């Protein structure tokens, strides 16, 4: 028994509330207020995980977010991999498992890997996975390396809240600096948001000595927090500020620990005060990764917060003043403590009952599954069940770095401190290099100076003051044994040396080559020692080597936080038809088409293909009903409406008579066909752009752009009425007869309502617009009515349709009907190179005298070259199956296969009893009748080039 829980003390724990949880299958006891780590230490569990690469036994190192070793997978209803045991509250019934260990951390069966360590140095993957056939080893090697395991069956218990928040001052860190800054900001009448990643505020005041304004630190913390809460300021515990983004946006992740998903906060403060403290560094000596070797500051935190004494015979090794308080506190509670300082002079006095060894450093630690002693550089050996180390302090300035703050090297602190100020961010406290409470408070004063003057007095430190003396103790070349730099990624001094030898000397290369500073801890304890070592090896100074780029997130953030409510259907919400429920009750099978959820078919047969074929066949026989509500209905209104549509369309539209429709293309400025559709002229100054369903937003945006850029506010007005109206299509030889039964109050006579004309009528008191346009090749009427009044009209169409054997068709059948006619779908039968001429529409290019979008691009060399891909029909030999869509037309050049185009649409036509297909084929328009080879997945078959239209080429049925 070495580590243990003391009988009294522990500011964070509540001894009246014992809890139990499981770790690697064994029961662990603790109290409310424990973290998993403090409870494991109290239970003397030394080995809590295995290292990433060598499967070395690892114990708890720290007491906060910097923890590199003690990662656990949390099971149960809120399974989370790679959780830091040092920040995860211990809860009753929690199930935790060590990472990268099988079956458990203590008896890991891959532990043998450590004996092969010299065969798997840095960059081992890069070198091994090349030769001779790395696929053979890769799966096993990958399985042996790594950290936690993702639970494939995990489902979120809910969606994470995302909250947008504004305040004057965001204070990150509720230690002495943050609390002081928050209080001063409050005194200036500013609104404050105070966040801290611990469950309770205070930061270092929770375990370091201090007296403020004549009160014990804990009392001052509580009073300050109460005062802020009463002042209406937002205080968020268990919340990490993980990133700073452009224009001072801060990302916060708040944890709840009650099964509820975390909350993401997007805070836009006027000023950010970064008071995130500092992180203690390890010291370099052989086997410095053994369980039982901890950060000295962490040991003090476990003692004072959790009443956990980390060992009985303790060696405290340091290069700076901060470890002296630790040694004294441990000796006070009865541990046998020995202090080893690399400095010969200039250090504080040794605490009572603590022998001090001056001018010596640790050379190595010994032990198997936990440390059992250390040897100094003069060969002296001390037995120990615990070794505490302090290699100095690294200010937590990640957020400052993310905000593009430049860092400045401080020789006195042996650390990077914030350099030139960044607008909107102030760094205070230990993060700015302050050590004593007096310095911390003085530095907090000007933190929000740009925003106002405070009436609150500056807190005063009235107790003992910490000192910051330090003598750097960076890892150096030529030391004996294996000295760990990065615990989490198993990077040793030799790995950094190897990187330097192979010329990966840039700090960014060093990171990628050795993995130093990667993974979940992002090198919080290891980066500085690593780059200081590289500096030493390459004869540069630390600032010359520099740091890697700081990027969010500071600590891992659950993807659920970023996703928020954007999961499942809400990930990319579909647009829905006003008649969706009616279609559902008719058995419709829905699919998403260009963002719309539409009936694919109506499920007449169990077999979808047969249902679709049946709908397409019957549509040609009598009459078909189709919900075309998704069709674009963008109104262009105004004195220059005609000039406007002339400019937007490839075809001349201003000559269209009111009450008539015209089919046309819209081009992009590069001449490529962007959309096609029918333009309706309602009256002299009013048009309706009936664009493709999936293109409505894009067409609308384009119309707006040209309106604002070229025509102006007084010239035209654009209104997207797509969602306001439902459009019900009646198509087929008997469509007019069916429509006549409705009594819409307009003449359906072909003289009054010819093909490509519109009429106005009414249904049940509502205005309806009837457009005689066809996408099927049969006589068709599109009836548009207020979306909320469409249901009775649809019901009556179906009712009246029974007498005509009417069929309701889905989009799949419509696709067959239009393909039979050779009608194209933009983006399916065209691509990003298709010009109008390639679709056989060259008249406007030649004839038009007025300007239109894309015009100049139609007269380029490229547009005129003779081997362009052109729209064709493709027929297959008698009895063969439809060509696969996407199959390539091929030809042989010098014995090699080359594509000469591809199949864009292909269906079995139930009416024609044979396949029909459309394609884009080189020079296709001049090659009708020619038979070519097509290839799909290696299979070659024949196809004959034809005109695009395979059904009723004369167009008689439009009028039948």
């Amino acid at each position, binding site marked *: 028994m070495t580590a243990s829980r003391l009988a009294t003390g522990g500011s964070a724990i509540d001894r009246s509330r014992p809890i139990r949880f499981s770790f690697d299958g064994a029961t662990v006891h603790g109290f409310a207020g424990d973290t998993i780590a403090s409870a494991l230490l109290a239970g003397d569990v030394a080995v809590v995980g295995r290292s990433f690469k060598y499967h070395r036994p690892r114990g708890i190192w720290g007491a906060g977010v910097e923890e590199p070793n003690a990662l656990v997978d949390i099971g149960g209803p809120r399974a989370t991999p790679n959780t830091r045991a040092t920040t995860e509250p211990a809860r009753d019934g929690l199930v935790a498992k060590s990472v990268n260990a099988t079956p458990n951390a203590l008896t890991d069966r891959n532990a043998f890997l450590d004996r092969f360590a010299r065969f798997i140095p840095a960059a081992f993957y890069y070198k091994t996975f090349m030769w001779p056939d790395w696929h053979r080893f890769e799966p096993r090697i990958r399985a042996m390396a790594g950290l936690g395991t993702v639970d494939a069956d995990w489902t979120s218990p809910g969606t994470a809240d995302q909250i947008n928040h504004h305040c004057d001052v965001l204070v990150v860190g509720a230690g002495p600096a943050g609390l002081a800054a928050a209080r001063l900001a409050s005194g200036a009448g500013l609104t404050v948001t105070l966040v801290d990643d611990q469950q309770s505020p205070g930061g270092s005041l929770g375990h370091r000595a201090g007296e403020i304004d004549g009160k014990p630190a804990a009392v001052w913390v509580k009073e300050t927090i109460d005062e802020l809460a009463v002042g209406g300021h937002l205080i968020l515990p268990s919340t990490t500020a993980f990133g700073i*983004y*452009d*224009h001072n*946006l801060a990302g916060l992740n708040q944890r709840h620990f009650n099964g509820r998903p975390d909350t993401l906060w*997007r805070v*836009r403060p006027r000023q950010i005060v970064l008071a995130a403290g500092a992180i203690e560094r390890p010291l370099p000596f052989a086997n410095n990764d053994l369980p039982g070797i901890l950060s000295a500051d962490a040991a003090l935190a476990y003692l004072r917060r959790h009443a956990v004494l980390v060992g009985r015979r303790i060696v405290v090794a340091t290069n700076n003043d901060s470890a002296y308080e630790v040694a004294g506190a441990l000796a006070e509670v009865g541990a046998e403590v020995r202090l080893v300082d690399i400095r010969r002079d200039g250090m504080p006095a040794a605490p009572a009952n603590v022998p001090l060894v001056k001018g010596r450093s640790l050379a190595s630690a010994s032990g198997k599954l936990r440390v059992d002693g250390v040897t100094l550089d003069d060969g002296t050996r001390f037995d120990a069940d615990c070794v505490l180390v302090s290699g100095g302090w690294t200010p937590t300035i990640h957020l400052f770095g993310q905000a593009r703050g430049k860092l400045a090297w401080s020789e006195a602190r042996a650390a990077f401190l914030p350099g030139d100020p960044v607008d909107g961010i102030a760094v205070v406290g230990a993060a700015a290099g302050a050590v004593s409470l007096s310095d911390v408070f003085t530095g907090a004063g000007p933190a929000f100076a740009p925003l106002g003057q405070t009436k609150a007095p500056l807190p005063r430190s009235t107790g003992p003051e910490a000192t910051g003396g330090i003598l750097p103790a960076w890892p150096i070349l030529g030391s004996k044994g294996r000295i760990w730099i990065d615990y989490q990624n198993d990077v040793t001094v030799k790995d950094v040396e190897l990187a330097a030898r192979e010329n990966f000397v840039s700090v960014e290369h060093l990171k990628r080559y050795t993995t130093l500073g990667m993974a979940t801890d992002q090198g919080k304890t290891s980066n500085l020692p690593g780059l200081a070592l590289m500096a030493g090896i390459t004869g540069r100074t630390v600032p010359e080597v520099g740091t890697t780029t700081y990027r969010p997130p500071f600590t891992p953030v659950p993807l659920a936080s970023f996703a928020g409510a954007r999961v499942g259907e809400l990930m990319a919400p579909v647009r829905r038809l006003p008649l969706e429920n009616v279609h559902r009750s008719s058995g419709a099978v829905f699919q998403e088409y260009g963002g719309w959820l539409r009936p694919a078919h109506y499920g007449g047969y169990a077999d979808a293909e047969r249902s679709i074929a049946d709908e397409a066949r019957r549509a040609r026989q009598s009459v078909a009903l189709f919900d075309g509500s998704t069709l674009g209905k963008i109104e262009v209104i105004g004195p220059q409406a005609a000039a406007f549509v002339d400019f937007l369309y490839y075809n001349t539209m201003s000559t269209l008579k009111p009450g008539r429709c015209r089919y046309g293309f819209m081009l992009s*400025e*590069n001449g490529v066909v962007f959309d096609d559709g029918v333009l309706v002229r309602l009256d002299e100054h009013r048009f309706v752009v009936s664009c493709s369903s999936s293109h409505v937003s894009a067409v609308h*945006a384009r119309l*707006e*752009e040209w309106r*604002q*850029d*070229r025509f*102006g*506010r007084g010239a035209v007005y654009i209104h997207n009425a797509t969602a306001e109206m439902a459009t019900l299509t009646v198509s087929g030889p008997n469509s007019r007869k069916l429509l006549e039964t409705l009594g819409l109050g307009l003449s359906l006579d072909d003289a009054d309502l010819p093909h490509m004309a519109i009429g106005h009528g009414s249904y049940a008191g509502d205005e309806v617009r009837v457009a005689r346009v066809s996408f099927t090749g049969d006589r068709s009427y599109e009836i548009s009515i207020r979306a909320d009044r469409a249901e009775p009209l649809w019901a009556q169409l179906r009712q009246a349709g029974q007498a005509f054997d009417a069929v309701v068709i889905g989009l799949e059948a419509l696709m067959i009907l239009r393909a039979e006619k050779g009608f194209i779908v933009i983006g399916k039968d065209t691509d990003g190179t298709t010009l109008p001429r390639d679709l056989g529409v060259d008249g406007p290019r030649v004839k038009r005298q007025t*300007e239109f979008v894309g*015009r*100049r*691009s*139609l*007269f*380029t060399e490229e547009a005129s070259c003779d081997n362009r891909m052109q729209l064709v029909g493709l027929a297959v030999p008698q009895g063969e199956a439809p060509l696969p869509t996407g199959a390539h037309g091929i030809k042989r050049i010098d014995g090699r296969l080359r594509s000469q185009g591809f199949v864009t649409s292909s269906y079995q036509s139930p009416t024609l009893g044979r396949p029909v297909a459309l394609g884009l084929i080189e020079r296709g328009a001049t090659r009708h009748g020619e038979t070519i080879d097509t290839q799909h997945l290696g299979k070659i078959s024949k196809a004959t080039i034809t005109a695009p239209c395979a059904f009723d080429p004369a167009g008689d049925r439009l009028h039948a």
Partner: protein
Amino acid sequence: MQLFPCPFCGPRDETEFHYGGDAGNIRPDGADVPIDRWANYLYLRSNPKGAAREIWVHMNCGEFFVMERDTVTHKVLSSAALDGEHVA
């Protein structure tokens, strides 16, 4: 996340905006525009390091506007409607 000032709606998150190209990229009209000029209009962008004058559209209100901003510091220098009447 940058904050862009829409001349009509005020400061809004950058995700609500679409980029519309360099400001001052005047469209040359006609079927006989010299091909280099047309190609420049279509494809040549200045991509400056530092101050840039750009067209943006605020998708929420649909208004296009001219914004001057620094591509290095991401500082927004000015924002005005196309007609110059509304200035944010």
